[in-house]
């Protein structure tokens, strides 16, 4: 709230709230991992790499087997009731005190910000939502801010481009966390690509409901990534990667994006942590 004047009672509700300066807890011994449905089906390796990265930091990872989807596909398509029931099923699975780490900024944004809207008429459930929201971290954020990792680059130097999903950027500040992690690596030269903050055109169902507009967007994105001179592309969101990699493949290009977790596990060693337990 601005100090300029008090807000009237019915001041515009601004949803979702942007990530301002967030306070981080000390590094825990245990975390939940919410794997996300896209990773489950198309990028399970990225999910496992996230688990290994967390374990490398000495954290026990818990993966409730009954988890499925955060509800976002139905939510953004306007099927709110269906989204709510799927969200409710997840809420029950992550009810303990451990942090919930999610290797996807957009799913993390769903847990952290949008469940409030879904359960706005259920005061009892809202208490659970508040707890879940406060404990939800995107993977890069968790590694950087909670684990306070110090990574060292291994292997040959690499020129790399980072693409950040729009909801991860705007709801979770994932672009800043990703950049900070990569900046720790002496062998990584991160190059900017043209219109870096612009959407890749995925947008879930948007990519099939508005295929031509989405196609134009992803073609511009792949051209920008190729034009950046990067030898590797990383992103912390597999929805974008599904879109971007599919377009690279269709164009006969050898370039593929990989999840930031996979890159970090493959190309870094942990030099311990700076944070106290």
């Amino acid at each position, binding site marked *: *709230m601005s*100090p*300029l004047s008090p*807000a*009237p*009672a*019915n*001041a*515009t*509700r*601004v*949803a*979702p709230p942007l990530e301002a300066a967030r306070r981080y807890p000390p590094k825990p011994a245990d975390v939940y*991992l919410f*794997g996300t*449905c896209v990773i*489950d*089906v*198309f990028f*399970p390796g990225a*999910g*496992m790499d996230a688990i290994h990265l967390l374990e490398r930091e000495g954290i026990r990872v*818990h*993966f409730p*087997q*009954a988890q*499925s*989807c955060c509800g976002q596909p*139905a939510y*953004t*398509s*306007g*099927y*709110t009731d*269906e989204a709510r*029931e*799927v969200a409710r099923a997840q809420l029950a699975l992550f009810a303990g005190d451990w942090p919930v780490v999610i290797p996807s900024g957009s799913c993390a944004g769903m847990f952290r910000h949008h469940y409030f809207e879904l359960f706005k008429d259920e005061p009892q459930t809202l208490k659970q939502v508040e707890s879940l929201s406060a404990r939800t971290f995107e993977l890069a954020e968790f590694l950087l801010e909670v684990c306070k990792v110090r990574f060292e680059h291994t292997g040959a130097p690499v020129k790399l481009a980072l693409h950040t999903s*729009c909801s991860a950027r*705007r709801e979770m500040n994932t672009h800043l966390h990703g950049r900070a992690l990569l900046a720790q690596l002496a062998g990584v030269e991160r190059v900017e690509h043209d219109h870096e903050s*612009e*959407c890749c*055109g995925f*947008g*879930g169902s*948007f990519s*099939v*409901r*508005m*295929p*031509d*507009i989405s*196609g*134009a*967007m*992803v073609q511009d994105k792949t051209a920008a990534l190729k034009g950046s001179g990067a030898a590797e592309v990383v992103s912390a969101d597999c929805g974008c990667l*599904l879109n971007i990699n*599919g*377009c690279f*493949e*269709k164009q006969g290009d050898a370039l593929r994006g990989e999840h930031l977790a996979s890159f970090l596990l493959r190309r870094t060693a942990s030099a311990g942590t700076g944070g106290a337990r």
Partner: protein
Amino acid sequence: MSTLADTPAQPIAFTRNAREALADAQLRRNFRGAMDSLMDKRRNQFPDGDELERLRAFGNRVRARALSKLPDLLERLEANLARNGVQVHWAETVEEANAIVHGIAERHAAKKVIKGKSMVSEEMEMNHYLGARGVDCLESDMGEFIVQLREEKPSHIIMPAIHLNAGQVARLFHDKLDVDYTEDVDRLIQIGRETLRRNFFEADIGVSGVNFAIAETGTLLLVENEGNGRMSTTVPPVHIAVTGIEKVVENLRDVIPLLSLLTRSATGQPITTYVNMISGPRKADELDGPQEVHLVLLDNGRSQAFADGELRQTLNCIRCGACMNHCPVYTRIGGHAYGTVYPGPIGKIVTPHMLGLETTRDLPTASSMCGACGEVCPVKIPIPSLLRRLREEAVRAPAAEPQHMRGQGAKHSKKETLVWKAWRTLNTSPGLYRVAMYAGTRLRGLMPADIGPWTRYRSAPKPAARSLHELAREHLGAQ
């Protein structure tokens, strides 16, 4: 270009329009270049991110407060304008608004109207309405003048001719105004000004829009850069201002942050060249100004948005156009593809209230929900959230209570509803989910190479050999 009046019930052919626009390389170059430049200009105006956030929050609260008192403020505005000698008219529909304007024109036997820029007059299709009744309207804003010559509609709410480059304007002027071909922009503007100049003196009526209607003082505030707004509102003997009911603010103090946000967000200017404050017709001892001033307050669906606490936020809009300048969809297809007066993100959330969801059913869907619009909106309209809400209204059962919107359920499909119900069952039944994942990963070889719209631009995604659930169970044990 079809007019809105031609297609009241048919859905706008948005996807077809978009496909045509995407295939127009010149159009895409024009928009990308122009939007890049506008984004840079705005960024340069807000070097301090914290200051911008404070100002946006302030702007949001000023608008929210004005809307929270809207009926009261409108009555005060009417009373104070009347005290200043301005005649106030209320119009629920564009037909009523046009009839009011035409009635004034008839009383003055007016044959010629000169117009400053007004999006509400576009909403009314005033030029068409008056033209059909023997009253000629001439646009005096340079961009509007250009699109009028081309018999087009504006492609942007602030820069109506932004879809054209100098060469296209040069050819237009050469063809229509009988002047030598020149691509010199200064010369082109000079040609336009010379053409318009005499029309200000010949016009019987001047029409303008309003940026802020100030209730406390009964003042109409109008910003512009070309001086045509001042000419249109002061030279002809009659001035008619048209505006939406949401443009009212409480007092002059409230205008200060909004004005600063408006010009900096819109064109990257700290202030416009002209800020006109109109507080009534010429007084007995004055030599200049119109003898009559009218204000037409138009509803046209705004009350529907006003009635719902969430949708009301749509009316915060101060029409800066920053949302379209930053929109990756608008940047690629331009304004005309939307088939509506207001294009881009703001068009997608405001037009459903004006035309109903039947006509506009595809507009809320035409967003990747990237959030760029909401991020730059100077009055913090949560545009992505409102798009989501409109999607919800569009897919609801048409008869479901409560009825929030005209055209509710226009996109409702039993088949799609069933698909989402099945999706819900799958994602709330762990056993079923496990079986589906097992089948999906084991049968991944059967994934077709062509899956319709997705594979037009991408190869088909292939499920992994084993799901994360399986790999995690193996690594961590069943939990």
